């Protein structure tokens, strides 16, 4: 499930993540089920979708160089 894609970056379930081991020294990390993680990620995406629907009336195209 975990795949390192750089020295300090890994990918889990399609999400980029800075290697959490680097923070262990400073913050006590907790037991967290993958389902809970996926639940949070899903809700965050839902929130972004909602914001976009509410506030983005149109999507601007990038400028085209002539």
């Amino acid at each position, binding site marked *: 499930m975990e795949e390192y894609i750089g020295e300090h970056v890994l990918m889990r379930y399609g999400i980029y993540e800075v290697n959490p081991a680097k923070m262990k020294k400073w*913050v006590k990390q907790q037991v*967290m089920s993958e*389902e809970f993680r996926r639940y*949070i990620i899903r809700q965050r995406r839902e929130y972004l979708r*909602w914001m976009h629907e509410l506030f983005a009336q149109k999507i601007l195209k990038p400028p085209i160089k002539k």
Partner: protein
Amino acid sequence: MTTAYTYKPWLVEKWKDDWVPEEVAIDCYATFACRHKFCREVCPVYQETGNESHISYGFHVALLSVSRGYEKLHNLGNTFTYCLQCGACQLRCPNTLFTGDFYRITNEHNVLVTKTRNELLRLGFKFKGSDDMLKAINQIVKDTEEARLSLTEWAKDLDLPRYGETILFTDYFMATQMTNILRLIAKILKVAGIKFGIIENPKPTLPYELDYLGEKGIQYIKENIEALKKAGAKTVIVPDPHVYVSLTKEYPRLTGSEVPFDVVFVTDYIWNLIKEGKLVPKKPVNKKVTYHDPCMLNKVSGIWESPRNILKSIPGIEFIDEDHVTQWYYCCGNGASEARTFKILHEDLSYRIGLKRLNRALDTGAKTLAVACPHCNEQFNEVKLKSKTEIEILDIFEILAESLEIR
């Protein structure tokens, strides 16, 4: 398995009037340092009171001040009563939920509020309404212990066995106060040809409140799990969102292990039956309906699709949907408590939050507000009666049963 939980060992530690564990203080400092206060905009209580000490940010700062010696815990007791435990703040906040980056920690606001209230009571400090709150919880315990509540009376003519691989499970609340809904759900399952049973003496599940009962709370968990195992349960259908949160989140948090069966919320289960063609709603129900997302389903459990799908599958209904993310901002005013804790602590505030929600439903042009939670149902009916608001409050299964011609 639907279980999703987090567990922080340091929340088990005993606090003092002038001391909280440093790990809690670090969590609190992280929130204090944020200052975006996204938790403020989404909080149903803040929308009414406009007081920043009533939001998640305020609670964390209060505990931080205790840990840094600026304040004593007992002086801050009343602050912690201003929480519905609806879960909106921790859902909305992109910072306290550090998951997805290298912190791998998350603040569970609802658990923190329960923990703080419980520690205040353990240390002998009273806060506004604490006596009444404990009285309400103890009354439920007393009624259960003395078997004063007849918890299977609702099913006496339905011929349901006390065993089965599929069990319809609810605690005292629905079994005594929302029996009409429970009977309709049982009849709908029967029409779909599902073989299911119930258990004889379910104990109260009380999400976020079992902590107040100490050992007795843990005993209730064990008894419920044992009874379900003994009945042969492999799938447990839960018709009450509060019970669902208990089984999927609170039981694992308090016991440290997941429950040994699948827990499915009833709308998910029945929507699957409709999808499979085992239930076909045929009779048109001509109503203009909007749907209220119960906090325990939408915010805490992430279930919002199946109730909408059920409503959309009923012919004749004009369904006016309000996005489930918009509804993070709403609550019926009852909060997470099965024992009506918030209503006891802040009756007027609870009423105002409920009335606001009813008015928002009327703003959509709907004449009927569909609910999927017996506690929301009860609260809305109280608010409707008190405010004389002209809106029809119906449970989703009352509407579905009408379409299936079940009475």
